């Protein structure tokens, strides 16, 4: 705000633009919690009154709870697997390998392929191989889409990781395995935590892959999609959406905080800016 007085007209124009930008980004999202507290079946202004009955209905919905549990299990397994695989890939990709850029491109390609394409492709592959559609097949799909996120987060932590630290550990008598646990892992921990959180959210948010691969074990987004067929369930879905929104936002913020904390720590440990 201080800049407003300083830059006068020019600054005010920018402020208006920034405000419009934020409104465009967040108003649609904020409608969700707004109507989730509205005492009416219909999503329309004016609001008719405050209620928490939709949240109460939500907490009593056994199918929803089963779907939530499915989503949490899939998210946990998928984030663990993709972070482990991403860690190995990131460790290799920070080295000056021949064809490194190409490898990195391939590893991250799934970011740029429409999920519906990945979903259909996986559906064909998994049914051809004969794996029954279940949470297991959803995990396979989610690992695929989560790996690029894990690689990118972990590589940013590996950048500037002094390779001589691992050599020093070997020199001081530790095996490669113990070196990983005593040096690499603790120094990578902030990156690993950030990767776990981020990949968990990617899995948690995914509708498309789960829709194709979950069979009868619905995950939460697939469950929500199903509920939308019943108009009277809409406010409950809004309540659920609001809850997910808040949990997601908190997790993303936390993941970013951990990652930055790690970067600041790494910079500090290398004696930068001290």
């Amino acid at each position, binding site marked *: 705000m201080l800049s407003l007085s300083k830059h006068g007209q020019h600054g005010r124009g920018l402020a208006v633009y920034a405000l419009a930008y934020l409104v465009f980004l967040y108003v649609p999202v904020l409608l969700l919690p707004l109507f989730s507290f509205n005492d009416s079946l219909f999503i329309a202004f004016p609001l008719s009154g405050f209620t928490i009955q939709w949240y109460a209905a939500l907490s009593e919905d056994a199918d929803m709870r089963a779907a939530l549990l499915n989503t949490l299990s899939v998210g946990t397994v998928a984030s663990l697997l993709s972070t482990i695989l991403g860690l190995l890939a990131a460790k290799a990709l920070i080295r000056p390998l021949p064809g490194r850029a190409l490898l990195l491109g391939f590893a991250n390609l799934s970011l740029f392929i429409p999920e519906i394409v990945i979903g259909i492709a996986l559906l064909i592959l998994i049914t051809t191989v004969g794996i029954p559609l279940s949470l297991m097949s959803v995990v396979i799909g989610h690992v695929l889409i989560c790996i690029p996120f894990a690689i990118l987060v972990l590589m940013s932590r590996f950048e500037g990781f002094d390779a001589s630290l691992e050599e020093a550990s070997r020199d001081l*008598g530790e095996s490669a395995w113990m070196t990983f646990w005593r040096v690499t892992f603790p120094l990578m921990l902030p990156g690993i935590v950030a990767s776990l959180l981020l990949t968990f959210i990617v899995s948690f948010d995914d509708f498309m892959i789960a829709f194709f691969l979950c069979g009868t074990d619905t995950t939460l987004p697939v469950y929500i999609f199903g509920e939308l067929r019943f108009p009277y369930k809409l406010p409950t879905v809004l309540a659920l959406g609001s809850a997910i929104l808040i949990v997601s936002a908190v997790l993303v913020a936390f993941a970013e905080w951990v990652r930055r904390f790690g970067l600041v720590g790494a910079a500090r*440990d290398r004696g930068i800016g001290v």
Partner: protein
Amino acid sequence: MAREDFVRIENVSKRFGATLAVDRASFGIGRGEFFSLLGPSGCGKTTLLRMIGGFAVPDSGAIVLDGEDITAVPPNKRPTNMVFQSYAIFPHLNVRDNIAYGLRNEHLPTTERNARVAEALAMIRLEGYDTRRAHELSGGERQRVALARALVKRPKLLLLDEPLGALDKRLREAMQVELRQLQREVGISFIFVTHDQEEALSMSDRIAVMEKGRVLQIADPKTLYEAPATRAVADFIGTMNFFEGCLTAMAGEIATVETRALNHLHVAMHPGTTFGAGTRVLVAIRPEKFTLSREPPGAPAIMARVIVATYLGDRSHFQIAIEGAAGPIIVSAQNSATGGRRFEPEETVYLSWPADGPILLPA
């Protein structure tokens, strides 16, 4: 040699792609010796050190330590320890845990382990620094922690990869003295990699001069400076003036060389060197061996002209032109020795040298 070699590097070669990083290096290092590998960057000195430490495996040849062939032994199983160029202090551990890091595998009772760490902290004079983290240490302190962390393992051989390179000049000079004293106290053989010839000269018992993967000469600092074996060594260590010439006669240990710039020169041969009469040779003379004077001196002298005079406080540098010389000759004179007299550019002077000044080198 009579000395029993504690470390033997036997015909070691290492190739990276098209470059031969180390080319058939062969030499021995004595017990308790401070041995330096000296050369410009890319000469293979660090590669050789890393092979001794186990971080690279030679393509051919063997490395023997205390009678045991360690060529293929991984770094964690070798009785060697390394001080890395970046120091590689573990940033997530404090000073005490950094120093104790390598003791985990030695399964010592807690009291002994603590005693060893305390002893190491006292050795590097960082008592009370136990709980400091890497980022709270200065460059010199990190360097000492890295040293203590390696020495606490009681290695048979300590490897140091340009450990003073990151320090400022004053601290580097202090650490040179400190490191040398420490080495005498612990009595462990040190192999010290550096590109700084002054550092190597001031600290080492012996120095191996390397260039393009090859060991050019191994000698103590005085021999290396006073009697370099080749032009490359003479050029790398200090400043040297070279004069091309032809060996015309031999009388015992004294060779007579005909040069365009300095006319007839009598050069004492090193025992063991042989040159036949008529061979093309190189005469090398250090800048400080020359004397400038206005009056004709008693020693062999020639007329010369001062081109550039540079005053450096304790001494002065002159660039001198003489007829027949390829380029200017560099002369260094202590300012106290000239009695405060200065030589000015364009002045005509006598350039003389003592009998033991010129060195004979293969052309």
